[in-house]
Structure formats: structure tokens, C-alpha cells
């Protein structure tokens, strides 16, 4: 991978933070945007302009071509069976909420069980907990192994006749382990359960083939893969999307309706896209997919894993850093810093790194149940992406070397 070339595509890397060159290592939260994505968004506002699926004029037809072109591109990106299986929405959280509400209201019975796990992000588990209170369903958890991983064995132990849905992240946002989604899906289907996968942390980094995985629903967000915020994708198998009714109703999702309440919805996927969609976001997502494809997911993943191994090697030499996910083959590094055997609160470390121009995340990373598994109140998370370099890792390690309790408090003076 030619990182120096790649970095030139990201104008934001020219900025400073706290008067230092920006070292952005919070890619698990969101990624920076390359010029082609910015241009695609700008082009909508400065040239295309019209709404989608509505106008009888050239501008509108151009928008439709770009918008539906992105749907085709996204289908190819996930290896979906057809473009109709791609629904645009505001992102992973909305997609997971849509699926939880649709399945809970239309497919599940009181007493049915949804299987989740304790490493899940709030967006994956809270929609089901909320729906369970309305529909008297129940959320149960696959026990994690001692490293915090989901294993096929533990999944089998948690599975029983009442389980009708399995909902989990393909890659955990805290620990970065990849769950055995394909194997779990095969077993779940043998037991008549549907599988919903949160791909927010996997789609930007590893090749996704929804047909090979055979999952029933899959979501991801554009902003975690160089795309705009406020836009994402819900993939669903065509027969499921055809059979289900949407959560939202409004303009453009219906074909006919009258005062008697007769409603004819449009065909999938448009019946799921009520109201004006984030059109510039969808076009930006298309540009992001092109950008990622031009580099290649295998190269992206190899680069992140190389940076992580480099970081582990350098940081371990300091002897003050404890890692929680050394073996997770991703760009996510979860750790805490110790000073004379005492753990420095993660937020103090993150604030200290901020003064060095380094952006990392601290806290529970929206996976609040994992705290009990790791037995620490919070962690620091550095997460790498395509534009990060070994030099940046060196800067992180140098800063961590200085991260004593005294220095972390010293930033306030």
C-alpha cells in the first residue's frame, strides 16, 4: 500500500490539533474523508441538486442514475443477490432498529428469544431490549470466552428452541475480534432462527459476502469507511424484505393510498425509503466504495494488522501498557496505561494524548456490558485505518511513555 499517496487524498490530515500535526487514531468511531468523497457530496449540492425519483427533468434523471447506481455498486460491494436487497438509511443504528421493530412486531411471538452477547454495541442490543418490553420477547446472551470472543461452541450452548433471532456484530467495536458469522448462521438456520449482523466495524476493513455468510440482514454505516455521516445501508434477503412491512411510512414509499386507508406500497427497496433520503450521503457512499475498492480490502486489513503488531511490539517494551485484545486480528488496540502498578483512568490518558495531537477513544465504547467481562471500568482504544503510518505509531508510543499519572494531571496547568 502506498500510504504517502493515500494520505494526500485526505485534506484534513493537513490540520493540527493542539498545535501539533494531527495523529488520528479513532477510526473505530469515524473515519476521515478523502477528496473524491468530498467532491461527490459537493457535486450534489453544486450541480445535481434535485430530489430522487420525482422529477420529469434532466437534473432529476441524473440524480436517479447516480442514486440507483450507488445501490447497484453497494450490492456488488456486499455481493448481494440483487440491488433491491439494498436499503439506504441513516446508518447501522437505524438499520438495527428497523430490523428489531419489524421482526418483533411481525414475526416474533411473546416468549421468543433473541440471542445477543455481552460485547455488543448499544446499537445492536438496545433495540431488542426495547422491543422485548413491548412484545414480551426476551434477550439472552451468548457467553464470551476468556478473551472476550464469541465461539461457535458457546453459541451452540446458548441456542435453544425459543431462539428465533441471533443478532451480533461481525467485528466487536471494543476488542476487534471477528465472530464466526458463517458457522453461526448455518447452525441458526438449522434451528429456524434468523441472523442479523452488525457490520459497522467489519465492512470498512474486511471483504463482505452476504451470500456466502448467508445472513438474513446486515447493516453498515458509510462514515466508518471514508463516507459521509448520516447514511448507511440495510441489506436484507429479498424474500424477507418483500414479506415484511416497513417501520416508516410517507412520501415515495407508496404507490397509491386513499381515504379508506387502502395503501399500496412500492416494491422493495423503495417501500423502505420513505421521505427524501440523504441523497448527497448516498452519492458520497458510492465514492467511498470506489475509493476503498481501489485500495482493496485485503490491503487495508493487512496494513491495519501490520500497524497493530508494530504498536504491540513497541508498546510492550514500555512495560506500562496492558492490552486486552492482542490476538484480535484487526486495527483495534484496546489497552490501559499503568503508573507504578496503578492503572491511570483511561480518560486521563486520552486527554493527555490529546495534548500531543493524538486522537484516541476512552471509556466503554458504547459496549457497557463488556465492562463486567474485562473487569475494568474503561479502556483506551486506538484504531487504525488506511492513512495511518508507523511514524504515527511511534508518536503514540512516545506519548504513552510520558503518560505518567503526574503528567496526565499536569495537562490542566
Amino acid at each position, binding site marked *: 500500500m502506498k500510504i504517502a499517496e493515500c494520505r494526500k487524498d485526505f485534506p484534513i490530515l493537513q490540520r493540527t490539533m493542539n498545535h501539533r500535526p494531527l495523529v488520528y487514531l479513532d477510526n473505530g468511531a469515524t473515519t476521515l474523508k478523502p477528496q473524491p468523497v468530498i467532491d461527490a457530496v459537493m457535486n450534489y449540492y453544486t450541480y445535481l441538486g434535485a430530489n430522487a425519483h420525482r422529477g420529469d427533468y434532466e437534473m432529476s434523471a441524473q440524480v436517479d442514475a447516480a442514486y440507483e447506481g450507488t445501490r447497484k455498486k453497494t450490492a456488488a460491494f456486499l455481493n448481494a443477490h440483487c440491488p433491491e436487497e439494498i436499503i439506504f438509511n441513516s446508518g447501522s443504528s437505524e438499520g438495527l432498529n428497523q430490523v428489531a421493530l419489524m421482526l418483533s412486531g411481525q414475526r416474533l411471538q411473546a416468549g421468543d428469544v433473541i440471542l445477543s452477547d455481552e460485547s455488543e454495541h448499544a446499537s445492536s442490543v438496545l433495540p431488542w431490549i426495547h422491543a422485548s418490553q413491548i412484545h414480551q420477547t426476551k434477550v439472552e446472551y451468548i457467553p464470551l470466552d476468556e478473551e472476550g470472543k464469541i465461539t461457535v461452541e458457546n453459541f451452540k450452548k446458548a441456542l435453544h428452541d425459543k431462539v428465533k433471532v441471533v443478532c451480533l456484530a461481525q467485528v466487536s467495536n471494543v476488542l476487534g475480534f471477528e465472530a464466526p458469522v458463517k458457522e453461526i448462521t448455518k447452525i441458526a438456520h438449522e434451528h429456524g432462527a434468523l441472523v442479523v449482523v452488525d457490520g459497522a466495524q467489519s465492512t470498512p476493513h474486511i471483504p463482505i459476502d452476504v451470500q456466502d455468510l448467508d445472513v438474513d440482514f446486515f447493516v453498515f454505516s458509510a462514515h466508518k469507511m471514508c463516507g459521509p455521516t448520516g447514511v448507511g445501508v440495510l441489506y436484507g434477503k429479498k424474500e424477507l424484505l418483500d414479506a415484511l412491512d416497513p417501520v416508516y411510512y410517507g412520501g415515495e414509499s407508496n404507490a397509491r393510498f386513499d381515504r379508506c386507508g387502502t395503501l399500496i406500497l412500492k416494491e422493495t427497496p423503495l417501500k423502505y425509503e420513505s421521505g427524501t433520503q440523504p441523497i448527497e450521503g448516498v452519492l458520497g457512499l458510492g465514492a467511498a466504495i470506489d475509493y476503498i475498492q481501489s485500495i482493496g480490502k485485503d490491503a487495508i486489513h493487512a496494513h491495519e494488522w501490520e500497524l497493530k503488531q508494530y504498536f504491540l511490539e513497541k508498546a510492550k517494551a514500555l512495560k506500562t501498557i496492558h492490552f486486552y485484545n492482542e490476538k484480535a486480528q484487526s486495527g483495534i488496540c484496546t489497552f490501559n496505561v499503568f503508573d507504578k502498578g496503578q492503572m*491511570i483512568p483511561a480518560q486521563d490518558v486520552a486527554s493527555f494524548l490529546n495534548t500531543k495531537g493524538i486522537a484516541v477513544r476512552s471509556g466503554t465504547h458504547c459496549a457497557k456490558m463488556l465492562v463486567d467481562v474485562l473487569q475494568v471500568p474503561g479502556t483506551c482504544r486506538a484504531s487504525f485505518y488506511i492513512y495511518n503510518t508507523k511514524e504515527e505509531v511511534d508518536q503514540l508510543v512516545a506519548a504513552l511513555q510520558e503518560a505518567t499519572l503526574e503528567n496526565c494531571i499536569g495537562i490542566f*496547568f
Partner: protein
Amino acid sequence: MSEIDPNLLRDIIMDHYQYPRNHQLSEEPSYQSKHMASESCIDDITVQVKFDQDRIEDVRFDGQACTISTASTSIMSELVKGKTKEEANEIIRNYFSMIDQKEYDEDLLEEAIAFQNVGKQANRINCATIGWKALRDMIKESEGK
């Protein structure tokens, strides 16, 4: 703003973080409790107060918290113990003024002036005020009775 040696101020925070005062909750029913879970970070603390009529007889706290929330709550607990509610409210008002970079009475705040620059890291203002908000709320609730 105080011209006190920054190293001294830093040491005050270090000391209260490493050896927090009044850092154990009481099981006596005469204590009022307030649980504060920060929306933005891991800080999750419980503050207790025991009133003797108009006077604050005791303040205690415990929980998971960063250096700034632990030290600021520890310092607060020492500052307001034995004070009347009115005196405590005055201290709290001055503390929030200081955090907001407004005029405040340094003499009233004693060691709490160590947090005069906490606003340099905007995301940490919540850490420096979480315990103080708990006490402020409990005094207000007690006055409303």
C-alpha cells in the same frame, strides 16, 4: 486567577486522587444519596450527605471515576463539611463560576482552586463538576421539603 505554583496545584489533585477523603459510603439511613452516571464518560459515582438540621454534618462518596472527578469530589467533601447549607451553596456557586472562567472568591474555595484551568480541556468540565452537582441537588431537595 491565582498565581500559585502550578506544581503545587497539580500535587493537590494527585493527593486527593490517590488518597481520596471521605471515600466510603455509609449504610446509615440518615444519609441521603445521589447516584451520578456521566453521559459522556465512565464516571459513575454516588455522593452521600448527612444533614443536621441546617448544617452539613458529613459528606461521603464512592464509585468509578477519573482523576479529576475523584479529586474534585474529595476536595468538595472536605470543604463543605460542618458548613451551613447557605455557606455550602455559596462555595458551590463560586466553584461553578471558577469553572466557567468567571469571577470567584478564591478564599472560599481553598484547595478547589486547583481546578481553575480544567476548562482548558473542555470535555473534562463534567468530570470536575459531577460530584458538586450531586451535592447541589441534594441541598436543593432538602430545602424543598
